[in-house]
């Protein structure tokens, strides 16, 4: 029973990989690399988000890790 369940699960994962997912190739990432994709593109939005974050968590800063989705080296 357990083997059948694992087999079913594995086949489901395989089916998802083969049909539902795709790899965005390095040369197809123009849209992902667009400045509009940056979460911190709007200073006002960033300030508001930071305020909400501080209000909820009583913590601030620590957002030094950045980068958009261009995948460039």
């Amino acid at each position: 029973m357990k083997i059948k369940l694992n087999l079913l699960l594995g086949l489901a994962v395989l089916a998802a990989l083969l049909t539902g997912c795709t790899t965005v190739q390095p040369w197809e990432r123009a849209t992902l690399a667009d400045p509009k994709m940056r979460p911190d593109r709007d200073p006002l939005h960033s300030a508001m988000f930071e305020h909400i974050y501080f209000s909820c968590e009583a913590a601030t800063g620590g957002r030094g890790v950045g980068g958009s989705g261009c995948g460039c080296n």
Partner: protein
Amino acid sequence: MSYTTKLISGLTLGLVLALSAAGQVKLGQPFPALAGHALEGTLPDFSGQVVLVDFWATWCAPCKASFPAYTELQREFAPRGFILLAVSVDKTAGPYEEFLQRFKPAFPTVRDAAQKLIAEVRVPAMPTSYLLDRHGIVRSVHSGYHGESTVKALREEIARLLEEKS
């Protein structure tokens, strides 16, 4: 983890890795013929020359950062039979032409607007450059642009290939 789960996981991972690496141009292989891929721009005469084919795009910051160094390489080695060809994969002409007008590279550039050539070459990252010997065989592949280390390696490899007898 049961044997069946391990087997399926292994097969799935292998399939994904195989699919992602399929069709990539590798060392020792002839580079695909550039004509016939509907490249926009004028292709120079490569016959008997050492060629560096660089795939780049205006939306890729490291690609643009490589241009000054590549200009130097072109100026340094062109008299000895070297040519650098920059192949842009920008789908739209606007940013491409704007960048070229601003930078005015010393090497020829073409645009693979339909992304046919790059789909055949299947670069692993942006930018990627392929160094071809005088017979059009891929002798080295540089994935990404890592500043001085990339330029140093390229300079040594180009000099070595130029010294080889044709």
